[in-house]
């Protein structure tokens, strides 16, 4: 019962699929723009442009027809995913280096679309994360609770020159009223827990108030909506997202059940960081994921399990990129052991 993906006639070309994916990122991108300001837009624009330009240059270098190569929009999707993953107001060269590396090395060195063993966007993101840890962990606070909200002109200056018109650096906009630097909810939780606070004590922090946390819960809900749209249009299948979100819920639920004071709750896991973006847009990359239905559930579950483990016990606050890359490596093995039996054959 191996189903070949989409039965929907309208969406069976790569171009159509990619356009649907781009469309589905819109709600998430808009919500991110609402909470984190112009930096999101700058990142998206830069990454998209660099992705298309690198794709065109490499296709030309490889002697391929670059018009048809560009018009499948797969490079654009890679660019957009990196743009969404980057911290708003990270300097422009961060976006450029990451996107260029993703398209050139993670995609084309392995043979281009359809041959890359790793998710190109996540390779680019991890390259940046290990290369520029400071820039990559300086997330703006949601602008509705930020002490120093950042306007368009200052955003542009910070993006281009790393300093705004008043001479403030990015750090100024990361601070809250007490002069402490605010971080993402996951970062805040991780730092707090490592300093010996319990999760209940940490709930009082401004960024962690609200239903799950400020800003990020809505970003995740928006990506969830976009993901559900992709599911209904049969652009992606339910196996990977359900496997991943289910594993996150179960793993973090178990940890919370063992000791709720020391472990982040399942709800916070599900609606923080890159969880929903990862589950619906990143892990579902058809090229680098497992391909059999059972394999895809295992693939997704592996990612979800690793996300919780790394978030709780690892050195980084979020873990979707690492988890996806690790499971990309395991995908051929998973496929090998989940081959459906051909009808009518017996075990040898």
């Amino acid at each position, binding site marked *: 019962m191996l189903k070949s993906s989409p039965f929907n006639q309208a969406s069976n070309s790569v171009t159509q699929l990619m356009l649907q994916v781009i469309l589905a990122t819109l709600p998430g991108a808009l919500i991110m723009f609402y909470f984190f300001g112009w930096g999101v837009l700058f990142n998206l624009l830069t990454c998209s442009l660099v992705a298309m330009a690198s794709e065109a240059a490499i296709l030309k270098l490889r002697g391929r027809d670059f018009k048809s190569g560009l018009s499948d929009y797969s490079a654009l999707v890679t660019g957009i995913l990196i743009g969404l993953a980057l911290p708003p107001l990270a300097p422009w060269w961060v976006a450029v280096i990451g996107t260029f590396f993703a398209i050139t*090395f993670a995609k084309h060195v392995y043979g281009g679309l359809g041959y890359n063993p790793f998710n190109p966007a996540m390779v680019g993101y991890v390259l940046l994360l*290990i*290369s*520029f840890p400071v820039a990559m962990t300086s997330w703006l606070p949601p602008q509705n609770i930020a002490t120093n909200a950042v306007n368009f002109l200052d955003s542009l200056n910070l993006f281009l020159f790393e300093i705004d018109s008043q001479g403030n650096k990015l750090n100024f906009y990361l601070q809250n009223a007490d002069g402490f630097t605010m971080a993402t909810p996951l970062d805040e939780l991780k730092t707090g827990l490592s300093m010996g606070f319990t999760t209940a004590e940490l709930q009082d922090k401004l960024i962690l108030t609200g239903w799950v946390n400020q800003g990020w819960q809505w970003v995740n809900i928006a990506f969830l909506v976009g993901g559900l749209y992709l599911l209904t249009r049969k652009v992606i299948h339910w196996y990977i997202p359900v496997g991943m979100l289910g594993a996150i819920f179960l793993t973090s639920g178990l940890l919370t059940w063992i000791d709720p004071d020391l472990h982040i709750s399942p709800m916070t896991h599900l609606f923080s960081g890159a969880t929903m973006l990862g589950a619906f847009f990143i892990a579902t990359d058809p090229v680098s994921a497992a391909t059999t239905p059972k394999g895809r559930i295992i693939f997704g579950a592996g990612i979800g399990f690793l996300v919780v483990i790394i978030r709780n016990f690892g050195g980084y606050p979020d873990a979707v990129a690492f988890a996806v890359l690790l499971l990309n490596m395991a995908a051929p093995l998973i496929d090998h052991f989940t081959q459906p039996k051909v009808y009518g054959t017996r075990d040898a």
Partner: protein
Amino acid sequence: MTTDYKSLTKQGLWDNNPALVQLLGLCPLLAVSNTFINGLGLGIATTMVLVGSNISVSFVRHWVPKEIRIPIFVMMIASFVTNTQLLMNAFTYDLYLVLGIFIPLIVTNCTIIGRAEAFASKNPIIPSFVDGLMQGIGFSVVLVLLGAIREILGQGTLFYGADQLLGSWAKQLTIQIYQVDQNFLFAILPPGAFFALGLLIALKNLIDHRAKQKASKVSVEVVGAESKA
């Protein structure tokens, strides 16, 4: 038997380069090639050991029983490595500290035992000396190139730490090519070494490929001209 020194040289530097073609000794190659000077330091040390071991292995080749040649070769190599290590400890102490464990690890560099086994144990002393020197230089050039690429990409400098190799006057040799607040850690960390080495190998293959194409074109033209005549 006359020995073709020109071909030995070409083998060591290009056609059979230990780092780019044989892919031997990758551990030190990738680990210490994070700056130009580190690469140069380890390159010189490895070349010294390679030359010494090739000469002495070639010298004793008639008296070493086939069955126990490997342990004997390794022991000879190890003594040369120990000499090199002591010399570096005495004269380039700072570099000795930076390179650390990778100096004694030259013993396990497959290039050296490989040349002893494949060349020096079958050839007279002078050709073995040339072979060791050329293989060593071939290895060093790649180390230095890798070091330069990673240093420029990673921290924007060139010849950083030249004083560790050449003495304190060399401090001013360091060139700041560009100034960055945040180093490009990827280039300095081991994954950057893998990528840079991969790119260098690709570049070598490209050059070889181009040269081959050119050669075949020329021969076709020659053949064509002959058939016309």
